[in-house]
């Protein structure tokens, strides 16, 4: 009971509003508020009043509309970009150099011997279709097992609907209809025989596809890659590294700025496409090198030997070094971003670091370190950072393992899975080629991988010159051969030697960095600006408005209560026409002079009317707040009683 009283009293205190009716309240508000419009409404004549009323309404709705726009703008999380260009001391990029050819032919020959003989014989057959005069009777019999897994065929498309498929080593012609090729040759108007490669999901099964090529050269290369992949995947990694080019053979000279360096400064990494690759300044174990000067004199100078004579003839037809500039601690994806350097030339590469720094979620959809990407990063075994290429390849490999049961030779393996080869997984080639051409799988991978927020590209300005010059050729070859092989014989030639200069350009960075276009401060100042512009308002005005709403709520409550009370009283009066005053009323009447136990609502108006009577402002009755509180006190005991 006590608590209730306190509560009610507290409520009464709170309720002490500036008026008793809505009108009073509103007028008071209009006169005292700090927003600019309302004051005009009550201060002006009736015509202007109307105008001002509508103007205020219009401005208020404008404010709310524009606030809506501003909040929407804020929630769209726009960004602005700022660009800066110049030169600063920067980390020299990591430089990966590889040979275009993955293994030395002299080392890999025992493994590839059968395959090479097979392709030689096949080429012989293709180029000289008349059988009999070929020299196959002299050579030992071919290992046709490799052949039967994935044969090369000729497709004669003179007859569009019924192409004749001709196995190169067999004389009998099989019609295409029997093998039900899923990929029917599309070249309709080429009447020429087309070099083809067919792969079946199981030997002898009917589920076959023909990959058709318009050029025999392409077909032979693709076929050879497929076959050699299968053979080499069985070879253990150590052995493969041994077959590749060794750092001391490949990197003949190295100079970074004024400091000499040698092959030991390079980190070896095994790359499935290019065999042994060597990375300069990878930053894995040691600090990354800085370069604080532009120009070729302060860059990296390399002399490489690619020993073109030792290339595997059918595997790679282009000769040169493959190199790539990339960030420290990132995996070099040479097939994507790598460039060639031609033998017998000096290639100068001016570098401009093009950086894009983006803000993460919710501003743009990118990932900081790849931890929130649902694809397992297989390249983490190299301790390299996340990149979208790594993600896409991991995604493909994961799909491959899921569907074909084995991993592709070109990509890293997760735990407990083997690389595909023809013996253990005879249908892998079919499985792989169908997966590779599946648009759906590619799209899934594209959708699940996210780009990194900090995207760094190395823009290269490449120029080339012949090197060494004819005059200097002799002594350069002599010295380099001597240094490498400790012999006075010249073991190098123009076809193998490459000079590289990699250096920063005069402007070595171009950084585009993002910043939020709309911050919370921006939002608040814009909201304030809008409110101020149309109505001259501030947050305090909003609070004022809230206060008025509370007051009007109170008035509503009071009105309801008094109405209820009036109803009760009327009922009571109906029973007892002359109701005796209650004790509390008597008490009130005693303590409060202004007290009347009639309807409470009439009271203020009566008082106003009395006040309005004297036309001249003499000493008016003290119209203090304490007086106004009257009805409250009247109400107090009543609500108590209820």
């Amino acid at each position, binding site marked *: 009971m006590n608590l209730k009283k306190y509560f009610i009293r507290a409520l009464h205190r709170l309720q002490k509003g500036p008026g008793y009716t809505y*009108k009073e309240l509103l007028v008071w508000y209009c006169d005292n508020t700090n927003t600019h419009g309302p004051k005009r409404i009550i201060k002006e004549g009736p015509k202007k009043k109307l105008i001002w009323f509508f103007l205020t309404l219009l401005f208020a709705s404008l404010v709310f509309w524009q606030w809506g726009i501003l909040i929407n703008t804020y929630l769209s999380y726009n960004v602005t970009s700022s660009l800066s260009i110049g030169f600063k001391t920067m980390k020299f990029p990591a430089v990966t150099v590889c040979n275009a050819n993955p293994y030395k032919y002299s080392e890999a020959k025992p493994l590839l011997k059968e395959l090479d003989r097979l392709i030689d014989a096949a080429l012989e057959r293709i180029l000289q279709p008349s059988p009999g005069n070929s020299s196959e009777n002299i050579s030992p019999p071919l290992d046709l097992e490799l052949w039967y897994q994935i044969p090369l065929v000729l497709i004669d498309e003179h007859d569009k609907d019924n192409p004749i498929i001709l196995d190169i080593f067999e004389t009998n012609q099989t019609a295409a209809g029997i093998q039900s090729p899923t990929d029917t040759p599309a070249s309709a108007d080429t009447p020429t025989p087309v070099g083809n490669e067919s792969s079946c999901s199981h030997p002898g099964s009917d589920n076959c596809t023909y990959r058709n090529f318009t050029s025999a050269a392409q077909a032979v290369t693709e076929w050879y890659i497929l076959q050699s992949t299968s053979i080499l995947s069985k070879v253990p990694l150590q052995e493969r590294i041994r077959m590749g080019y060794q750092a001391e053979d490949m990197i003949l000279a190295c100079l970074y700025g004024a400091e000499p360096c040698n092959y030991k400064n390079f980190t070896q990494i095994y790359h499935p496409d290019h065999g042994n690759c060597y990375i300069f300044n990878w930053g894995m174990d040691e600090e990354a090198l800085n370069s604080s000067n532009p120009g070729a004199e302060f860059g990296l100078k390399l002399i490489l030997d690619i020993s073109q004579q030792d290339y595997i003839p059918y595997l790679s037809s282009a000769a040169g070094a493959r190199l790539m500039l990339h960030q420290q601690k990132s995996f070099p994806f040479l097939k*994507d971003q790598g460039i060639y*350097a031609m033998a017998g030339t000096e290639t100068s590469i001016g570098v401009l670091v093009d950086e894009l720094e983006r803000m993460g979620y919710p501003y743009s959809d990118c990932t900081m370190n790849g931890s929130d990407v649902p694809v397992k990063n297989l390249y983490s075994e190299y301790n390299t950072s996340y990149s*979208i290429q790594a993600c896409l390849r991991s995604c493909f490999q994961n799909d491959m393992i899921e569907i074909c049961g084995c991993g592709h030779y070109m990509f890293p393996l997760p735990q407990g899975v083997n690389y595909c080869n023809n013996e253990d997984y005879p249908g892998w080639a079919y499985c792989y080629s169908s997966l590779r051409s599946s648009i759906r799988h590619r799209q899934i991978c594209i959708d699940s991988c996210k780009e990194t927020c900090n995207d760094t590209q190395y823009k290269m300005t490449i120029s080339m010159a012949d090197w060494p010059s004819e005059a200097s050729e002799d002594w350069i070859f002599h010295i380099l051969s001597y240094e490498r092989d400790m012999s006075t014989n010249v073991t190098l030639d123009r076809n193998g030697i490459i000079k590289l200069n990699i250096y920063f350009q005069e402007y070595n960075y171009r950084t585009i960095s993002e910043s939020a276009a709309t911050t919370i401060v921006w939002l608040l100042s814009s909201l304030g600006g809008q409110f101020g512009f149309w109505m001259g308002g501030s947050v305090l005005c909003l609070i004022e408005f809230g206060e008025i709403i509370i007051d009007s709520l109170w008035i509503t409550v009071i009105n309801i209560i008094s109405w209820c009370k009036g109803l009760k009283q009327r009922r009571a009066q109906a029973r007892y026409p002359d109701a005796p005053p209650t004790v509390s009323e008597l008490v009130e009447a005693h303590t409060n002079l202004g007290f009347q136990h009639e309807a409470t609502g009439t009271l203020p108006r009566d008082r106003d009317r009395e006040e309005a009577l004297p036309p001249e402002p003499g000493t008016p009755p003290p119209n203090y707040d304490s007086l106004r509180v009257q009805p409250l006190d009247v109400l107090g005991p009543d609500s108590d009683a209820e």
Partner: protein
Amino acid sequence: AAMAPGKKITARIKRTLPVRGPQAPTLSELMRWYCLNTNTHGCRRIVVSRGRLRRFLWILLTLSAVGLIIWQCAELLMNYYSASVSVTVQFQKLPFPAVTICNINPYKYSAMKDYLSELDKETKKALETFYGFSEGKSKVRRSVDEWNSSGSDFFQQIPLLKFEDFSKTATDFHSGQKRKIEGSVFHKDSSIVNSGDSNDIIGFQLCDANNSSECALYTFSSGVNAIQEWYKLHYMNIMAQIPLETKEKLSYSADDLLLTCFFDGLSCDKRHFTRFHHPLHGNCYTFNSGENGTVLSTSTGGSEYGLQVVLYIDEADYNPFLVTSTGAKIIVHDQNEYPFIEDIGTEIETAAATSIGMHFTRSRKLSKPYSDCTETGADIPVENLYNKSYSLQICLHSCFQKAMVDSCGCAQYAQPLPAGAEYCNYKKNPNWMYCYYKLHEKFVKEQLGCQQICKDACSFKEWALTTSIAQWPSAVSEDWMLRVLSWDKGQKINKKLNKTDLANLMVFYKDLNERFISENPANTLVILLSNFGGQLGLWMSCSVVCVIEIIEVFFIDSLSIVMRRQWQKAKKWWNNRQQERPGKPPQSGDLERQGHDNPVCIDEDLPTFNTALRLPLPQESPLPRTPPPNYSTLRLETAFTEQLPDTLELGQH
């Protein structure tokens, strides 16, 4: 008597909404009223402050605040049309661009023999006369007798000349005669200034056919340039006379040019290429031209998934004078763009594998009023002669061609034909070359106005290319590669290919990141208004309401006060005149009262709040009595006792 209903209503309106004048009878009072009642912060201080210095200070401060507001708002307005740049990177499946490949040599030399034999003879003769070059001597000798045939007079009209010195005499290689050269000298090579050895200078002279004294002289420091330019001039004349179908036949077919093709891991052939005839490069072939409505796209980056072609460059069949380099030219462009291969093509070396990594960037500028660019080119008054989407290059070329047709009467060979025009050749337009060179000179010096008319396009796509070269085929694979490629081609020609006849080209996306650089309006109207509001609020706590107030008080009310004054003065003057003449007694008291009390205000209405406020004016009549508690609350109360019935009435109706 009962009033008409219309009148009743107007009377009612008059009663409830009476017309009133300004709040104060005089200007100073109006100002005072304004300053006391306005919502802006400075004014009130001016009125309320005591002391002249303070008042002055406040006036100064208020004025400077007004000045600052105006300055800052003007600044905001001026910076309204500024753009902010945003760069977004999207990783997605990218559309593969169109790749146009041309042989550097436009037409098979063997097929062109019929058309060019005379020109070649002429060239060789010139070489022999000037430089003693005699490789083709036997041929020239043999053809001397048939030499004076039909076309040769044109060659004679514009012969190569050797200049003895700057004394304007030159040797014609035909006759060996010396002749006087008149006309202005145009130097094609700027190095002429340095070459004191005048014996080296050769060039040619172009004269206006109608007026032979009008001549332009083109000189070159090197005979190589001179002969090539001269050859090109005549070559264009000859080519302009050959119809397009014949030219297409004379040039390389798709089978001639393309040996192998491989895209995205799948084999492709000549059906994936669209022929496109370029006036200077002959038949070019566009891969993925989007002609049949489908544009190929790549979903994997890397060299294996791009376009790989082996091109057959038949070096033996090259025109020795027209082109001096061997290889192919390629250009990567959008399907809707015209390939300006002569301007921005990349050259491809033979006996090498050229790997071109692409990086895709899309840019978008804001058009007017942010910057002066055009969205579609429709607002440029130059007709687009190319059947492709607008670009600055297209506009410049079209503009030049139009000027050419207008002033020379025929169209230049390297650009497409406008409707109704035909290509220049000296059979029909003997004057065109002089005209062309004059016009070109003007064009380069920006006198034709083309550079002013043409605007750059608002959005463009760019493929940044990283080109690198490797030896191809490698020493060990050369043998089988050439054999197989010869077999591939073997159905047509029975000869073994040479590796210098081949070029390997790879075009691929380095990564599938698309950079999109776009300009966005830095300001919207909402933000501008917010900034205005911020400025107004910061300096004066003002808002639009204040602005309306200012307009009301300073313009409408003040004006009406001034007008009233004038009216009363005029009335007084009139009355005085009237008085002078008939001698009526002046009603000065009446007038004064009117002047003071605003006659418009005096009506039969009940005193409203406004009139009530003005009536007592306690400051003016300081009666000695207990000062009334003149609180604003009080005033309010009175205000709304008066107004209550009004508003109530309004509410009820």
